[in-house]
């Protein structure tokens, strides 16, 4: 079980420590940890489980704050990580985001929360709704009050009733003036797109594909690339494959092939219902789900039987389920990067446009990529939106809403390090976008029923698709 939790700022300062068991952990472990980060670089921040000479460390980094937990004995590492994530969620929910100052400002609340959330290294109360009842979140009223009267308590005097009920995630006697429940489908599109196939390397692969029996011999083999490089390919090819008959070579469509495209979605529910409502939510096309994951309130039997979600909702905002829909056929937008190298400089041009009009406007479009390390300087401009190159060679191009009349494009030149003739490593473009009102997975909610309605509640449905891990490889 966990022995201690430390919160570290992004400069390695220990913001606070909470000892959980009788086996104290000395702060020195944080110095050790930070030394490791300094010597081994930032990449260590991404390693969640570290074995130090004295303790096993688990870390979760959220918005610059490192949550570090220590143990000396065997325990499921995911339990620790998941718990730290939960702590981070609860804190950022309480404090409206996380940063060094906000934690220092509210350290008492952080202590009180940690004390409720974990006891003797074992998670005690992690349900946000109950925590909110036990410890009041800081808000403007309490702040003002504390200035006027000196101090107010943020610790509740009574135990939340939910801890005793069979639905521990819900307050027992809720009264809402307006009974309403909203269901949001929030989807993120993860896609990997190859916009360019390396010449040569792929020649052999496509040859292999063709000659391994998928196509009969003599049919066209596709090669893509610049004329100069093609010549190189031919040379090599003639060297290596002299026993094959001459082949027709076509240029592969540059449009890019979809390596993978899938939707990761969440059903978010905001429920403001009185009493103990029992809801059922059904989908028109539940078979499209590839994977699902549910909030503890969902009863699993009805889902197993009929793919129906039956649940008693917690109060307020929560994620009812998350799902994945795989193997989508197309993306709403395209991004076409192109690099042309010539004697020490490289011309870049990136085109963005709508491929399959989703029917709603696409906004918040942003393209981001990291210039390869061999680039000395860059000069990039766009005909729409703004381009920014940061000190760490990250280039971000913010487009915003897709213009109606023209296709946004960015172009410019990169100057390579001396001695380099052409660019041979290519960056990956990360693309962000947002489409309101559409769930690109095609998921449709059939109906939402309320079993024991006190009064007819107001129901609302919305959908939203964002770019998730949307990557275009150049």
């Amino acid at each position, binding site marked *: 079980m966990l022995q201690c939790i430390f919160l570290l700022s992004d400069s390695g300062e220990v913001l606070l420590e909470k000892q959980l068991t009788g086996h104290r952990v000395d702060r020195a472990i944080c110095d050790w940890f930070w030394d490791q980060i300094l*010597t081994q670089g930032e990449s260590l921040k991404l390693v969640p489980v570290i074995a130090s000479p004295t303790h096993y460390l688990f870390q979760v980094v959220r918005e610059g704050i490192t949550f570090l937990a220590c143990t000396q004995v*065997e325990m499921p590492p995911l339990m620790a990580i*998941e718990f730290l994530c939960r702590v981070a969620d609860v804190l950022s929910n309480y404090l409206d985001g996380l940063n060094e100052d906000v934690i220092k400002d509210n350290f008492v609340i952080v202590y009180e929360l940690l004390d409720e959330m974990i006891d003797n290294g074992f998670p005690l109360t992690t349900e946000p709704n109950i925590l909110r009842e036990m410890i009041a979140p800081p808000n403007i009223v309490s702040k003002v009050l504390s200035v006027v009267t000196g101090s107010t308590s943020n610790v509740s*005097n009574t135990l939340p009733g939910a801890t005793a009920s069979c639905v521990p995630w819900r307050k027992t006697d809720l009264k809402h003036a307006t009974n309403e429940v909203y269901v949001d489908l929030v989807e993120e599109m993860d896609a990997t797109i190859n916009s360019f196939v390396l010449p040569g*390397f792929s020649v052999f692969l496509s040859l292999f594909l063709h000659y*391994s029996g998928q196509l009969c011999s003599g049919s066209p083999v596709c090669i893509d690339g610049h004329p100069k490089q093609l010549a190189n390919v031919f040379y090599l090819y003639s060297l290596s494959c002299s026993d094959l008959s001459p082949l027709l070579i076509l240029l592969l469509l540059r449009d890019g092939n979809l390596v993978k495209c899938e939707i990761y979605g969440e059903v978010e529910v905001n429920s403001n219902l009185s009493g103990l409502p029992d809801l059922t939510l059904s989908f028109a096309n539940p078979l499209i789900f590839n994977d*699902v994951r*549910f909030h503890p309130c969902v009863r699993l039997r009805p889902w197993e039987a009929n793919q129906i979600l039956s649940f008693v909702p917690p109060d307020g905002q929560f994620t009812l389920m998350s799902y994945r829909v795989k193997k989508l056929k197309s993306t709403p937008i395209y991004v076409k990067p192109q690099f042309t190298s010539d004697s020490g400089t490289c011309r870049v041009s990136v085109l963005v446009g709508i491929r399959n009009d989703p029917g709603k406007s696409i906004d918040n479009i942003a393209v981001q990529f990291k210039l390869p390390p061999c680039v000395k300087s860059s000069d990039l401009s766009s005909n729409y939106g703004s381009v920014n190159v940061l000190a760490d060679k990250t280039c971000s191009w913010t487009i915003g809403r897709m213009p109606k009349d023209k296709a946004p494009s960015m172009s410019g030149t990169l100057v390579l390090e001396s001695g380099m003739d052409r660019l*041979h490593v290519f960056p990956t473009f990360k693309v962000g976008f947002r489409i309101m009102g559409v769930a690109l997975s095609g998921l449709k909610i059939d109906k939402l029923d309320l079993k024991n309605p006190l009064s007819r509640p107001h129901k609302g449905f919305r959908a939203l698709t964002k770019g998730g891990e949307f990557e275009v490889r150049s």
Partner: protein
Amino acid sequence: MLTQFGATAESLSKASTMMFRIGTDAHLYDDPDDVSIAPLLDSKFESEKCEALKRLLALIAQGFDISNYFPQVVKNVATQSLEVKKLVYLYLLHYAEKRPNEALLSINYFQKDLGDPNPLVRAWALRTMAGIRLHAIASLVLVAVGKCARDPSVYVRKCAAIALPKLHDLRLEEHTAAIEEIFVEDMTMPHELITTEYMKSMIAYRLDYNLAFDNLHIFWRIYLSSSESQHIVGMLLKDNSPGVVGAAASAFASICPNNFSLIGRNYKRLCEILPDVEEWGQIVLIGILLRYAIAKHGLVRESLMLSFEDLEIQSQEKDDPESSHLTCTSPLLWSYNSAVVLAAAGVHWIMAPKEDIRKIVKPLIFLLRSSGSSKYVVLCNIQVFAKAMPSLFSPYYEDFFISSSDSYRTKTLKLEILSTIATKTSISSIFLEFQDHVRDPDRRFAADTVAAIGLCAQKLPDVSNTCLEALLYLALSESSNNAVALMGEEEILLVQVVKSIMAIIKQDPHSHERVIVHLVRSLDSMSAPAARAMVIWMLGEYCNIGVLTSKMIPTIFKYLAHRFHSESVETKLQIVNACVKVLLRAKVEDISELRLAISYVLELAKYDLNYDVRDRARVLKNFLSHCKGFNYLEEADYRTEFNDLTYVFAEYIFGGTKKVPSESFSYRFYLPGSLSQIVLHAAPGYEPLPEPCSFADDETGHSPTNVHNDHESNEIDDSDDISGSLDEENTSDYSSESVSGEGGDSYIASDSGEDEEAGTLIHLSDDAPDSGDHDRVSVKNTSSGLMDAGELMSKRALESWLNENSDSGQNSSNLSQVQRSLARISIKDIGQLVKPKSYTLLDPTNGNGLSVIYRFSSEVSKVSKELACIHVSFSNHSEEPMCNIFLAEEKPNPSPDSSEKSGSPSESVLVSHDKEATLIPMEEIDRLNPGQPADRVLQVRFEHHLLPLKLVLSCDGRKQQVKLRPDIGYFIKPLPMDIESFLKKESQLPGMFENIRRCTFSEHLNQQNDKDEPPQKDIFLMICEKLALKMLSNANLHLVSVDMPVAANLDDLSGISLRLSGEILNNSVPCLVTLTLKGTCAEPLEVSVKINCEETVFGLNLLNRIVNFLAEPPR
């Protein structure tokens, strides 16, 4: 507030942040002690107390020790305000242990609060009271817990369940203290081992032997309270509320994880309630139910584990219990909590029949989308699953495609998984994916991708041609890039490409002649020395596989001769090697053409700047003078020379027909989802799964003898499994030899007991089906070594030629000379100079004139390869002779069940679960006269404990405790290997297995100054020797090579590198150490120490040790 404002708000911006932070506790955190806290604590206003406590909390947060406020804070425990109470509790929990006497003052208030009508108050009081850890009130707390366990409020019952482990922990401390008083008990013993059974046996033991009774009541108390708390756990497990059951499960897991009868009573109900238990409880409960089900019913016949373990046990009643357990965990695969999903997946993995395991795949893969941190852990587990059963994951290869936002370790894990699960159908898509990564800006990752391509090609011979083409293209384009590109980073990729090509070609050299030709042709543009060296190696190795190559060879050698002077050392050595290989294999008619070029090369090498090259050239030239065709003799003479032994050796060393020992990959892995599985060593408290069917309830029909037999056969099974997998030939040979030779001597017994301990892990290996011989018991008892004796013998012989200064005759020592020169520095010299450091075990003032000094020796124990040898020197400084000097381990006394069987030592060992460092006792010294020294050898199994080992030194009947400090440098033994296999091994251990630290080495400075070194002595050599000596005297390593830059300035030492190798004693995992120097002779050198070792933690510890001793001043 206002003063506060005025004082801090110096600038406008500061003022605005103050405005923003108004009403929060910011000022308390920033300046917690700007007002005096003590008067505030005594204030009669709650708000002032509250502020004072907040200030104290801020000080705690910032790491100050403020325990001096304790008395004042304790007084406030009587408060009515819940907030103040909470703050006081937070403070108390932090400091109570430091101030036990004052903390006792608060007990009355807790007692009062426990009767409070508000459940929150009761719960808090209980939590705090159990948490303050005072031995004096342990019994009070137990009563309180018992009372709260029957509380009407669920929350209070839950807190009672969580309070039990606190109490248990406290008690452990207490009774280890108590035990230490009476018995000699080792503190390092994990607390988990001290179970009730253990306590009972202790008590029984004490009764049996009529030892001092005065402390017995302590035992009874401990025993009683422990049984009481187990009783409470049992009660809470039966609780109606799922929330309580979850907490009770966690209490069960930490108090009495092996008390299966407690679970047996509730098994069915626990299964039913499992989906409703809260998530954290689920994780623990799943594990408990799994252990119980295995101990009770064994594995299901069709399960995966069985097919690997080849256990004889089958479940008799596979109808309900397991399946009910399984069905209750399968909905948990949809849980929101990734830890729950993984735990449920682990149960399926171990228990489910093979066809049902598929269920876990999708949920596991879905976890990869949850959060960055859990992704890594999940992937580690998937990797293990995939290695054991690639077909599970192979349809889902797309989900392991790499996203640019992954961390480097995640990426390499994904690559590894992809190359594991690649099949004929998926390989083409996987390759398309790989091809994108080759162009990734992170060249390290690109090189890893190339390595993965190589692995896939080796695994699927069908695609090896395609891969080869692709890699060849890459090599050619990369080498042309390299000609102009920056050096350093870029090299990695090219080297890896050539390495992969080499690995593929090795499988079937004859069909890849063309590739070799291409590579050789591109030599001109290839600038990375490592890549060049490999190409030349291939050239030499495969010089006669086809027409093309043999035609090319003369030209190439001309080219190489021309370029020779500008090559790096590594390449030069390979060129010289290639010369010999080519000559050995060339046809007679070609030789005349080759001769000129080759003798020119050898001549150049003979006068090279680098003495390694010079040495090698000399040896090889000498070699070749006996070889066919190279000398200027007539053909007739050459026939007589043909049988010359030298030629045979040359053929033996350079002949390419050697069977490359196929590396048997063996994966030893831990329970899925455990911490040990991620850190790759058994974390303290890790418990392997119980023996199948080891727990027989009264109700079941298992006859005890039956169970016992199963038990035994398993254990032997496992022990052999482990040792076999670790080091196929050696250990099995050892054990069989020793068993037959010494007839179950006690050494062996303890040894196999140890094996057994390690063997109960889940263990899988790639070649499991044939190695998992179900008849192993009999095989072991008869001489199993005979089977592979032939192979073994040949291997031994080769090893002895290569590595030992054997006494088998002139010729072999000749050969060892060759090997030495390959190693580039004379190890013989060094070997004599090595002086391991001595430590004092007992100095004469404390030991009544007996002084004991010990030093770690580099010998390898003859009894078991896991033992470290320690030379102990005794000397008597007193006036009188001493008698019966003996050094033994502090041993917990044997438990009754093992003493019953003491008649047959091998049996008793099988059941003893002794985890501690064990000691093979030394010979007793009967008599030691004044001034007389005596030496003995101790053999100790340290495991990897770095804690001092407590020993008892008895002398003249007096016993004295002494502490033996382990030295991690001797937890390894030298692993002789040559530079090629070193580099190969090193390349197999990249990424997380590699650790680097820097330190400064200044020993050579003093040496230079105070000693008049003969000026002709090479200063480089001297420093290398110093460094090597330092390394070898502090750690039991084998010096593989010492490399120097060719074109080095006179006193610039940068670039010198030493390579050392060793293997960890108890698991034979190789451990590679590379030292690289930087700096000049006149200054302290900067040494960067790199360790490549699969056991990351061990590697790190060793690294720290090396850095420490390198930096420490000379003795």
